[in-house]
């Protein structure tokens, strides 16, 4: 396992994590799935998934750049991912779940390597 892989994992995990956290919010859920729809019981699961994915992103960042610079990397990755999610929610809301799904799958694929090796 090398640094670029950990970096990709950190990035995709935070991207999907922010997608999940965004979709857990009423306003963005409406934008994506239509007026009047509410996340309902999905909200808890989305929030949980988002939190877990952001934690995975942190773990991958620390693995990618060490325990001090890893934190700096994590904040940078979070900022970049969040800006992308904002752009999707504003200009292509219906594609946001797909963005989240694809990046979550990519992150899950790389997940085993974060803790093993």
């Amino acid at each position, binding site marked *: 396992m090398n640094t670029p892989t950990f970096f990709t994992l950190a990035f995709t995990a935070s991207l999907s994590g922010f997608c999940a956290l*965004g979709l857990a919010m009423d*306003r963005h859920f409406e934008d994506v799935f239509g007026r009047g729809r509410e996340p309902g019981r999905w909200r808890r699961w989305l929030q949980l998934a988002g939190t877990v994915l952001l934690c995975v992103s942190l773990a991958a960042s620390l693995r990618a*750049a060490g325990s001090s610079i890893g934190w*700096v990397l994590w904040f940078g990755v*979070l*900022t970049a991912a969040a800006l992308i*999610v904002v*752009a999707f*929610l*504003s200009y292509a809301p219906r594609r946001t779940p797909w963005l989240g799904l694809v990046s979550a799958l990519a992150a899950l694929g790389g997940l085993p390597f974060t803790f093993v090796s």
Partner: protein
Amino acid sequence: MKEGFRQSMAWLHTWSGLLVGWVLFLVFAAGTAAYFRDEITLWMKPELHALPHAPVAQAQAAERAVQFLQQRGADSPRWFISMPTGREPLVGVLWTKPAPPAGAAPAGERPRRARFENASLDPATGDTAHAPRATRGGDFFYRLHFDLHYMPAIWARWIVGFSAMFMLVAIVSGIVTHKRIFKDFFTFRGKKGQRSWLDAHNVTAVLALPYHLMITYTGLITLMFLYMPWGPQAAYKDRGGEQAFFAEVFPGGGRDRFQAAGEKAPLAPIAPMLAQASAHWGGAAAGRITVHHPNDANAVVAITRAEGPRLSYDQPSMQFNGATGALIATYGDVPQAAAETRGVLYGLHVGRFANPLLRALFFLSGLAGCVMVATGLLLWAVKERQKYAKVLRKGGRIGFGLRLVDGLNLGAVAGLPAAMAAFFWANRLLPVGLAERAAAEIRWFFIVWGALAVLALLRPTLRMWQAQLGLGALLFMLLPVLNAFTTTHSHLGATLRHGPGAVAGLDLVAIALGLGLASAVWFVERKRRKTLALKHAAKAPAPRTPGEPEALSQGLATSGHQP
């Protein structure tokens, strides 16, 4: 009471931000560019791009540099050698010119500070055959970031520090004012006038908030001994003053304690010292070599470790006896807690530890900072304009303050990118042999910026926004084209295939920045058409739908001549 506190924080946020906003925009833009200081310098020296990039052993590069200095500056009191890195392929040498004998200076003229000569050497051969064109390169943006220009550096640092303090106040009061940080975390609502400006301001501020807080606070830390010298002054009053303090906190630094013996002695070979230092640091390379009083019996060779993937800015160093080659002392292997704290905060600010990816993330956060400052400035104008909605509808004019802010906003936000692009154009277009060439490039930056700022203050209209943003967009997007016409090995066709990657990267970032500015032009055009349509609608006796009068008053600066 709670509401009152929040309102007072909103007031503080508005005015602390506006007062220094234009300086902050310059500081943010120059600082963001300075993350790629070495890459910009390399791009601006196209003579170096075709050089072979085979890494040269440190010992060989250092020996070649010493040979060169023995020829050119054997009687100099001090040599400085900076070793090549992955980002800077050449060996930089700098040497102090020997001071004229006492009494030689013309009467009445105070002895000026030491004069330096410098050269860039090919690490493999040690000659200057590939001498690149004279340019300040990325160092210009680095210095502009805190020394500004055309004024004494100390004044500039006080101005920048004052602005940074206001920035810190604006950030903290902004967090208090915002109150919906998590609810509006992902919210950007476009095409909604003031609402959209506020959303853009919030998103760029909140999503990069750790960066903004870090960069502002650590920025003040970098110059803390200038801004707050009183602690050491008081504590070391009877023990040698600030100089003693610095010698204690940063051991190994300082140059006044090295005294020449006046006896000639040949300089010991440098390679064994390098090998010993590198072994001591677990194989890490040397970054800087300083030789005090070369060829003297009291010569001292100081070697500082190269920057690596460590947060702290301060690097350990070793000193050797220049005549015998024996180790005198090692410094900074176990840094003191306070010095290390400052070193880490300093290191976080300048980001020298970052690899290209992390550097790109710093750059992105820096751009977010530029957008945050710009939208904050525009937001003030948008809000202020609403107060004039009635006056404007009657054909009146806006106040002087708003007009001034409109002009300054335009000159800063739209003018500065164009001026920065012009700096790169000057690098390629000015003749290589021009006298004072490096200064001429900088002059072109200020000529373009000055002209655009004057135009902006004279006519702060939407048309002027389009013209200046469009100029910046064109200059940035065409930069790779200019590069292709004026160089042989530095255009994208060559650099994408054979490198250097940094040069290709700068061209690509220039295209991206140009596209960003072009989309801003398109955005202003939409705004302008809407404003025009509304004006026509207002003239015609058509029934007015609610919301229109507000729409008239929203958006960018339109202080120009109202028909």
